[in-house]
């Protein structure tokens, strides 16, 4: 039983991920249609109802970093004219487009349509590049976010209703656009089926996050979590995606029941990761923490890069379009909150997940996630005094990743944690 179950999520996730890229390669080679989307508000729910394969350029770009070829892509885009100071994901994608979809995981199809939200402003500038390069329709689903910390409104409130109506109207306009692009009539029953799969995935996603409250943690939010995110994005609204997360929840429950942790050695420190992973040295970055017995038990990345799936929103299949509008509004807003207004969430998590330290990892490439982290950390320290570490690098550009410098700071952080714990014991 243990052999079959433990590790299944990572293995199946990696398999699904490869299958997805294989299918994209086939789509590219056949010259078939594809939709370009982003992780925060992919609107897979509508696109899958039109059988449009989805391409996530963010994921394509991060894969070039994980596979250590990002610099080649960045060079191509910078030669084209893009500044070293803009988002590395954008540049890697520009290079992919300029090289006819060339990518280490297979050829990436050209877009027939691009659908984006305003969750990240760079999405908008990015899609404008495709608009020019490929002369395709781009659709910006504008999802108003939280206006001030703690100021979220909910169903029945006039401001919430103003936002919901706006999102719902746009979704109806998107459906019309998809009909035009694909030449297919919108099938409400198929749409309901897709929403049903998305509901099952959302349930599974929130369950797995909850399960990591256990000691020891049953998955590593940084490394295993990234595999889960790949499936959550690429397979949202599909049966494979729904089944995957149900089975993953089953696996992790088993690990909780049997006290099987994610570290080979004892879990000494429970950590939260705030920011975007350091993909150019992805495994090594994690090891710098696990070597000290540090385990990432949750991350803001698992919230925003899943488009707020952590909220576990369940669509009402009897009222599918309006319910999707409500779900997108609440979930994408939550994804934005976990970047702009994340302190309450982090504070809750510190308490509920028995956290020993918070790792803030702002990066050069992403101002969305990184701009407020220093201030957020400052306030966290003032309010709770929770130990934290602030290390800057990048998600793509190895020129600004200094492993030696990072190691020094991480080592010092753990030495501080150890000494703090020792003092607490003696007190």
């Amino acid at each position: 039983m243990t052999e079959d179950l433990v590790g299944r999520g990572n293995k199946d996730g990696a398999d699904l991920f490869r299958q997805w890229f294989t299918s994209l390669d086939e789509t590219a080679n056949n010259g078939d249609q594809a939709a370009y989307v982003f992780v925060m508000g992919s609107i897979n729910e509508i696109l899958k109802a039109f059988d449009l394969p989805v391409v996530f350029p963010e994921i394509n770009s991060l894969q070039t970093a994980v596979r250590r070829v990002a610099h080649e892509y960045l060079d191509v885009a910078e030669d084209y004219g893009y500044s070293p100071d803009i988002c590395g994901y954008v540049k890697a994608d520009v290079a992919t487009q300029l090289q006819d979809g060339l990518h280490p995981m297979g050829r990436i199809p050209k877009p027939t349509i691009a659908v984006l939200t305003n969750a990240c402003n760079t999405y908008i500038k990015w899609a404008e590049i495709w608009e020019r390069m490929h002369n395709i329709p781009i659709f910006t689903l504008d999802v108003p976010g939280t206006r001030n910390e703690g100021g979220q409104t909910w169903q029945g409130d006039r401001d919430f209703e103003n936002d919901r109506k706006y999102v719902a109207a746009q979704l109806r306009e998107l459906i019309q656009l998809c009909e035009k692009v694909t030449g297919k009539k919108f099938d409400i029953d198929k749409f309901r089926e897709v929403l049903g799969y998305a509901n099952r995935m959302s349930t599974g996603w929130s369950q797995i996050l909850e399960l990591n409250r256990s000691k020891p943690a049953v998955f590593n939010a940084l490394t295993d979590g990234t595999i889960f995110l790949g499936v959550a994005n690429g397979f949202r609204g599909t049966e494979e995606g729904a089944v995957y997360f149900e089975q993953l929840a089953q696996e992790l429950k088993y690990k909780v029941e049997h006290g099987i942790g994610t570290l080979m050695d004892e879990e000494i420190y429970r950590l939260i990761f705030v920011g975007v992973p350091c993909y150019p040295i992805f495994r090594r970055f994690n090891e710098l923490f696990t070597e000290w017995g540090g385990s990432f038990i949750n991350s803001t990345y698992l919230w925003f890069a899943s488009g707020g799936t952590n909220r576990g929103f369940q669509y009402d299949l009897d009222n599918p379009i309006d319910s999707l509008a409500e779900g997108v509004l609440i979930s994408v807003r939550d994804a934005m909150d976990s970047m702009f207004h994340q302190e309450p969430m982090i504070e809750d998590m510190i308490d509920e997940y028995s956290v020993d330290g918070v790792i803030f990892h702002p990066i050069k490439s992403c101002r969305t996630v990184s701009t407020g982290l220093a201030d957020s950390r400052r306030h966290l320290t003032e309010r709770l005094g929770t130990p934290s570490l602030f290390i800057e690098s990048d998600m793509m550009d190895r020129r600004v990743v200094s492993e030696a410098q990072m190691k020094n700071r991480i080592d010092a952080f753990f030495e501080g944690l150890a000494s703090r714990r020792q003092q607490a014991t003696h007190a």
Partner: protein
Amino acid sequence: MNTKVFDDWRGQPLDEILRLCRDHVEDSDYSPVQRWRDAGGKVLGHFQVYFPEEIAHAAGLLPVKIMGASLEPTAADSRFGSYLCSVIKTSLELALSDNIQLDMFVSHPICDAARNLAAIWGRNYDYPCHILYLPQNPNSGHSVEYLRGEYDRIKRTIEEVAGREVTDEALRNSIGVFNENRRLLRELYDIKRETPWLLAAEDAYCLMAIGGMIPCEEHNEILAHALPLIREKSGRAEDRIRVVYEGAFCEQPPVDLIRMLGRTTYIVDDDFVIGSRFILDDVDASGDPLERLAHAYVEQSSYSPVQHDLRKLKEDMLLRRFRAARADAVIVSAAKMCEPGLEEQVAYTYGLDAADVPYFVSEFEENQNSFDQLELQVETFVENLLFA
């Protein structure tokens, strides 16, 4: 409130009026705003690019453009990471260093850094700090209705700060005051375009930018007084190329940089403080004023790299500006570390190449104080055009 916050210019010759405007724009102490506060007035600070100032005005608040300053972000630095534009940091620094005191702050999702700014500001100050979600899908048939609701939401917060209701009548009056301001600014830009030798580039800039820190009625008075004096000036056109300056929609180049450019070129159009001129025509003050303001933003507005609109492909808009200004070349600039500006620079240059328009690419920072190298490059560019 009847207090005049900038009154020194009255009775002064034009050159002195322009000097006073320059002093205020270059100083980071915002003394007119302080005078407003000293008289018991309340202040709403809003980050770039566009904010419907009419709503704050109708509530009796002083709307102030927070657009950075030439000062070191000593206190603000610890609130931000490394890879950011200057204007984000210096804007907060203005508050942290007590150069400006606010009763409300509003930011907009113009870029990823600006959207974070409201949250950061909110963690540091107890007064309301909000994001105004201007529509990024103005092409939706529902965007005007949505924006009307969003303006209503911000109006309610403003009312709480002001301690009074904003009536439709007050809003209509404010729209009228700002329509007059828009008309006068259009006149200022007519002068820049038609007779640029009558007004130095930096003076034109300061005459506009002073409006960001004083009541609109006072700005109107200054413009109404100064513009005829400028037109009356004698002067002859010099042999300079006519340029459009693009890239200052948010962070502003230092006045000295504008002065340097004005020594070798005529800046006949630009996007300096474009939020002041974002609504292109008069806003119809009849009917529902919030709806009219929302409609104006969606249907009667200019362009910038941070307003997405399928009808406004930015390089096409720039070419339109270039042609309308009968310019010879474009200075395609961007603030350092400004993601949307730097991204748009690429689109602009490819678009200008396709249209065979000469351009000069540069970056700037508001705190920059050395221009020798840049001046040499600009002169070389200009000479290449003049003597080609």
